[in-house]
């Protein structure tokens, strides 16, 4: 058995142990070596798509179509729902586009994401990804509209109905054919472009990398790399039974690895620490294998 198959088997075993189905792609940004465990499966991106939005925003800034210090108003009403950032705040806010992008990236603020999405448009996000050759990455709705499909599909039971397997089976937001989507391989390709300044000019690439490094969540990708001298930058995505993260892990010897992990949990419980942690566990298995070659 080749080393690559052994690694892929260990990754699938770790997913099974954690009670999830997982897809992973890991890429050595400089050598192109890769680990493929379902890398070409269509997956639901959820908030991982905020990374595509962030890249599109910076491309527009680089082309001079907008100024990142431009102020944007966020009235207290009509905000996209969410548990963090502007989505959770109560009073009117005025802030720059780039600080809005910070909230969107650091705490996955849904209101911040939709403010930016309204500013540049869904088409700009899709042109940005298509322009990088990501043919299977597509945003079909805003975060507000995506959450609205869940509310509609769940019916009167709201969040509690989401523990019913039949309700989960019919959620539009969990079907990659009908919602915002990508593949693990396309997400590592996007990260590689950002890290090599191929997605945007260097100054903008650095700004995107800074924001991804400011993400606050410690429970997924970062949990697999408990080393003070290893830098982890990423963007998570979550929906009922969906737990994702894509990011880049950088070692002090210069090794840098883009990793994309997309999971679906068997359990419909909202709190599942083992399902979060396995994203870090499998990313580590993949990165260790890439570093051993």
């Amino acid at each position, binding site marked *: 058995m080749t080393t690559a198959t052994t690694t892929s088997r260990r990754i699938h075993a770790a997913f*099974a*142990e954690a*009670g*999830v*189905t997982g897809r992973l792609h890991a890429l050595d940004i400089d050598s192109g070596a890769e680990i493929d465990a379902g890398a*070409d499966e269509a997956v639901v991106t*959820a*908030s991982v798509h905020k990374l595509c939005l962030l890249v599109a925003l910076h491309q527009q800034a680089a082309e001079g179509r907008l100024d990142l210090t431009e102020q944007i108003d966020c009235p207290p009403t009509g905000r996209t*729902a*969410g*548990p*963090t950032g502007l*989505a*959770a705040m109560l009073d009117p806010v005025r802030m720059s586009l780039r600080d809005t992008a910070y909230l969107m990236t650091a*705490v*996955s603020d*849904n209101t911040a994401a939709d403010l930016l999405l309204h500013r540049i448009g869904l088409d700009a996000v899709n042109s940005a990804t*298509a322009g990088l*050759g990501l*043919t*299977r990455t*597509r945003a079909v709705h805003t975060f507000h509209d995506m*959450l609205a499909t*869940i*509310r509609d599909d*769940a019916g009167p039971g*709201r*969040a*509690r109905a989401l523990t*019913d*397997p*039949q309700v*989960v*089976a019919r959620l539009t937001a*969990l079907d990659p*054919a009908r919602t915002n989507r990508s593949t693990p391989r396309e997400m590592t390709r996007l990260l590689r472009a950002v890290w090599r300044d191929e997605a945007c000019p260097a100054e903008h690439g650095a700004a995107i990398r800074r924001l991804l490094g400011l993400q606050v*969540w410690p*429970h997924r990708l970062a949990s697999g790399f408990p080393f003070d001298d290893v830098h982890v930058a990423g963007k*998570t*995505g*979550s*929906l*009922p*039974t969906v737990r994702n993260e894509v990011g880049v892990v950088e070692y002090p010897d210069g090794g840098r690895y883009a990793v994309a992990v997309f999971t*679906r*949990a*068997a*359990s*419909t*419980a*909202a*709190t599942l620490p*083992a399902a*979060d942690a396995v994203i870090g566990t499998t990313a580590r298995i993949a990165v260790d294998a890439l570093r051993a070659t």
Partner: protein
Amino acid sequence: MDLIRHLECFVAVAEASHFGRAATRLGIAQPQLSQRIQRLERELGVRLFERTSRQVTITKAGTLLLDEARELLTRSESLMAAARRIRDGESGLLRAALPPDLAGETVAAILEGFRQRHAGVELELHELSTAQQLTRLASHELDVGLVHHPCDITGLELGPVLRREVGVLLPRHSPAAALDTVPLAALDGHDLVLFPRSASPALYDDILTTCARDGYTPAAVRQGQGASFVRGLILSAGAVAFSPQDARSTHTAEGDPDITWRPLAGAPLNWRHSVAWPRGRGDAAVGAFAEATTRALLDAAAGGTDEPAEPARPLYLRPASEYWL
């Protein structure tokens, strides 16, 4: 032009971004693949790929057509599956699976119910765990199964959710056996016999989490499922095991002097099942199996248990959940 075959080539090249790799995947020669793409471009009147000497990239027009092409291919696959079964008619075969925890009478009732509903199709029945069923449903080696929730239902269609009341098998001399309904905490001190975790990892974890939360943390969890193995451990080691009410007869006969079955207080561990089949592949035979299984389980549970038995609990989404309804 065979549109479906040409669309397969289009999707393969789009996914591989490379003629050579796509040709390998399709099992055809690269010049043949190039010809097919050119023919498809002529037929559709649009250019699908930009080719340079080094690489191939999909055009904007190609991107716009890709999703529809994929959908058409999926539909075509499901049409072929349905046609295969219709064409085979009398000699048709339905590959179905049931979990190992059903009573013999229930299995017999499912077989009989299926025969009455769909006498023309032969039923090939397997005893498989939920994990095994999911793998085979995904690879289309299985047409339909009965799975334990919770499980990953991506790509599946489900019949109604069926609930089975789970109680406890315990030594008759155990103090808890004197109770009409047994709280989980009263099982403290007994080891637990449970199905292997790999059979249904999420259900296994759910059961142990619920036990711990309600005051029962077994010192040892023994993995076992066969009736005589479970009986042996209960008799000799003072262990307990969980069993659905409808399958208790598998483990303990009426008036059994050694082992007894008791309901759990508050029904904290009820099992949920659904008949499941790959999305888009449900035909008449699958429907007949789903109906027969649903009917047999409802009868075994004595009068229907598909109403939620659990009291509604609060649900607190934490900030890291990223969504809010």
